[in-house]
């Protein structure tokens, strides 16, 4: 049976040219007051590709993700989603783009008045009203099972741990079967086993659905596992971008130091 998602996918397909990166940022600059956070960032991700973004705390990784989804606006530079510049888009057009993006916030940002299951159902309840309620319920159960949270669906976010909130946030990000995943430290605060499971899940999604993902992480092991490419941010710039081996072989002082301490 074709789900609403399959239909949307096949209808949405023609406009997507595979030679255009799914997500691209060009010369992105962002300052807060006098604090220069991003100073000309260029990055791109293709279909089926995962980019890991690394950098010290405060390097501007979260800001980068927020700029890509348009919650924050850049001082200059552009963000392209499927080749479309998101600057100045009307809220409806931005909504169409955002529905294709699954976003995991660094601190999960679950709706604290809703239960775990309602949190995951939230995007479905708003954007998939065509889907029968029971089907939505099944989908929520399946998503929670994927992140290993099926047992706690009735709890409120305040009654589960930070790592569990993160996993629920990931389930919510996946609810609309996005084509793009933006994950802010998906495995931070997780034990090694859960962390490995989340990595597996991201890999599986990438394989099965050819998602394009940008994953911010401090976990070099996880970055190596899931990412095709890694980008290291420092002082508002991409210091190096490439495979893990490229980073290892780099003779840039900061890169070597970063790897030494990870």
């Amino acid at each position, binding site marked *: 049976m074709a789900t609403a998602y399959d239909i949307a996918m096949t209808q949405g397909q023609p406009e997507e040219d595979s030679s255009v990166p799914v997500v691209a940022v060009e010369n992105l600059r962002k300052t807060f007051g006098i604090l220069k956070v991003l100073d000309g960032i260029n990055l791109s991700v293709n279909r089926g590709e995962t980019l890991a973004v690394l950098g010290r705390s405060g390097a501007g990784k979260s800001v980068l993700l927020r700029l890509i989804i348009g919650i924050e606006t850049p001082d200059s530079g552009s963000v392209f989603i499927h080749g479309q510049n998101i600057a100045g888009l009307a809220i409806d057009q931005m909504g169409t783009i*955002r529905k294709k993006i699954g976003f995991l916030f660094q601190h999960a940002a679950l709706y604290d008045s809703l239960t775990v299951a309602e949190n995951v159902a939230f995007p479905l309840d708003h954007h998939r009203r065509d889907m029968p309620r029971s089907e939505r319920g099944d989908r929520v159960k399946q998503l929670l099972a994927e992140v290993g949270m099926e047992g706690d669906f009735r709890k409120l976010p305040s009654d589960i741990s930070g790592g569990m909130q993160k996993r629920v946030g990931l389930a919510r990000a996946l609810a609309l079967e996005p084509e793009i995943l933006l994950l802010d430290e998906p495995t931070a605060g997780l034990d090694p086993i859960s962390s490995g499971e989340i990595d597996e899940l991201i890999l599986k999604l990438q394989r099965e659905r050819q998602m394009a993902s940008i994953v911010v992480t401090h976990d070099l092991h996880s970055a190596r596992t899931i990412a095709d490419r890694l980008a290291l941010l420092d002082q508002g710039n991409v210091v190096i971008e490439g495979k893990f081996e490229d980073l290892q072989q780099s003779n840039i002082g900061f890169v070597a130091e970063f790897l030494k301490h990870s």
Partner: protein
Amino acid sequence: MLSVVNSATGLVNGFFEWFGNLGIFSWNVLKAGATPPYEWQELIRQLDEVGSKSLPLVAMAGAAIGVVISLEARYSLSRFGAKSMFPATLVYSVLQVMGPIITGLVICGRVGAGIGAELASMKVTEQIDAIEACAINPYRLLAATRILACILMLPLLTLGTDACALLTGWFAQTLVEPLSFHQFIQAGFKGSTFNAFLPQTFKTAVYGLIIGLIACFQGMRTRGGAEGVGRAATNSVVLGSLFVILADVVLVKFILVVFP
């Protein structure tokens, strides 16, 4: 001297900036709220939150002012030998003057602080960003529903306040001078058409607009952690009640001119 001028211009700038931002905010809410998809479910939840759950509070406030007005009115009227005017005086004071403004202020305290704090804490914990990231317009989902609920519920709550005030006002009077409730109401409303009281009741919709709008605005522009949340709640109540009182001045004059 210069610093006084500087801080004065700062204050003036801040004042205009606040109003400018409020204007932009209102426009965004109006645009979002007036276009589909409508958030019926959230609206119903808010009607319950603002309306039903405030009923005990306005009932108590109404009951209290009913007794106070009754005591005061009996005392002053008997001094002038106009005791027969008691029912009309009570009805007039409650319906025209005290009921609407007391409801406005009490609801501003309860609902204004509630909305201000709720939205502020959603803002600082990135929940509002998460709504946006989910391709949902937070002006539509959060602000428009709450403001509309306030607009719709304030007149109804005012009727609740009025009813309780009349009831306790009458009751306090019967303890001294027995008078049936029926007689009391008949005497109270004699000579005044029902229409005389409608504008006074429905003007509270404007209070609702003010309370909802200011609380949503203060909540959604919050920055800076728990302190910011506290400040948003306080400002929602302080500014809300201030503007409710100022609006009352304008509305009373307006009603006197339009409905002579």
